[in-house]
């Protein structure tokens, strides 16, 4: 099988910064534009354990998925009707979770470590998104910013149940309490979804150090103003979070879709034809 190379269609940029208050950076990012993979993790746990958990998450997933998509292309549909991308993400996230949990259980200094996860695998004009915890994926399309993932946090549950309003949520003292994380249990509940991707879309994966410090409309303005220069755009987002106090580690991965990237051999497939009828 020919090696996947999406770097002509997809551009990525990353930026990770400890912020203005903390001395260490427990966030970890991985961007592999050839494979079409972006992974961001925000670690937690004492001493350096948070860094260990988040870097294990990005490194293990980066390596495992490169291997998985060497075996079978991500768009391949399996017997159960799921794409291999979906199945591989689910399986490799579970494996990585077990590895972090194992390390945490067998090393006293890593006890209780964990990490959030948000990742996107781009393939065949789509993306598979897996997330756990409160790291987010946003999409900018036609100038409008949309939050693709929904946090697994106490605050989000309080919002969903109507206990507090979005305005009140800004003053909540219960931010940063996630209801799901990788590495804290032997099993993990991964949220997985597939989304259609269009040329011109800009995706932002970020840790809460960005979205807690920078309002959504400022994020939207930055993405739409600076998408022509992705590294500058990533740096600008981090600068804005720091200018507003930089109270937590700040990490961003930006993904810009420059061209359609249909799966090989499916250039004029039924999907495109169906899409063209509706467009």
């Amino acid at each position, binding site marked *: 099988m020919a090696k996947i190379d999406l770097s002509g269609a997809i551009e990525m940029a990353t930026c990770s910064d400890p912020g203005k208050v903390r001395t260490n950076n427990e966030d970890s990012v991985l961007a592999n534009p050839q494979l079409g993979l972006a992974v961001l993790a*925000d670690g937690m746990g004492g001493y350096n354990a948070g860094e260990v958990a988040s870097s294990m998450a990005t490194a293990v997933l980066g390596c495992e998925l490169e291997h998985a998509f060497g075996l079978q292309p991500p768009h391949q549909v399996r017997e159960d009707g799921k794409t291999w991308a979906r199945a591989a993400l689910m399986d490799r996230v579970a494996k990585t979770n077990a590895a972090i949990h194992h390390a945490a259980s067998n090393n006293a200094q890593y006890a209780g470590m964990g990490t959030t996860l948000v990742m996107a695998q781009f393939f065949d004009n789509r993306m598979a998104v897996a997330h756990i915890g409160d790291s987010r994926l946003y999409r900018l399309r036609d100038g409008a910013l949309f939050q693709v993932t929904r946090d697994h946090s106490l605050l989000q549950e*309080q919002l969903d*149940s109507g206990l507090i309003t979005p305005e009140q949520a800004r*003053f*909540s003292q219960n931010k*940063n309490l996630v209801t799901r994380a990788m590495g804290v249990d032997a099993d993990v509940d991964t949220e997985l979804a597939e989304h259609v991707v269009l040329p011109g879309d800009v995706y932002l994966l970020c840790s809460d150090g960005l979205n807690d410090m920078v309002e959504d409309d400022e994020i939207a303005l930055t993405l739409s103003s600076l998408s022509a220069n992705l590294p500058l755009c990533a740096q600008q987002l981090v600068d804005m979070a720091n200018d507003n106090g930089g109270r937590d580690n700040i990490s961003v991965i930006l993904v810009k879709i420059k061209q359609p990237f249909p799966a090989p051999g499916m250039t004029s497939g039924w999907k495109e034809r169906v899409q063209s009828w509706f467009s």
Partner: protein
Amino acid sequence: MAKLILSMDNLVLKEIPLNKERTTLGRKASNDIQIDNLAISGEHAVIVTILNDSFLEDLNSTNGTCVNGQQIKKHFLQNNDVIELGKYRLKYVNEAPAQASQADFEKTMVLRPDMMRKAAEHAGGKSAEAVEAGHAPMMPAVDLAPPIGAAVPKPAPVPEAAPVIPLGAIQVLNGSNAGKTLELVKSLTTLGKPGVQVAVIARRPHGYFLTHVEGAKFPSVNGEAIDTQAHELKDHDVIELAGVKMEFFFKL
């Protein structure tokens, strides 16, 4: 931990720590906070505390519950809120944790799923009741056991001080738009033609910065091309970009 300070006629009667998930207020002896006064209903109100946040709910009392002079049904308590029940006042105090642990505020913590589940189960009956009574369903209660990697959750974000620098603006010096002025109100203002040459002026707390975004040619300031780094703009700097000259200045 949050607490209530009970007073009457400006005389402090007692302090009540909000260390329970549900703290009830009323005239009957079964309440956590008993106020033996005829203006108070038997079961007047309840305060639900979830970790560091507290919510006050009036339990359809006869005389109602006021917070800071406003009648409320349900209220998300903020530091220094004053709850009025007849002649009694309850001040809600939820001070930010001590400075020493500042760095810990942002630490993300996990509420273990089993904790959530357990809590949801034992709150199950309660929320069903609430729905029947026409209330918004309550959040499943959360055990107050310290979460993993326990640290003090942060206080509400402190609003940043307004930038001390004056508002900046640019005035076009040549071409068809000569004389036009643009105030740099937004955090980012892009200049130029997309696909040809674009630069951005970022408004930051300590100044305005010009940065090259795209195009083979870089913008110049006072006749000198800038490099890839952000360039801080000074009063009356002249920016040249794609043949257009603009003067940057601070508005007084």
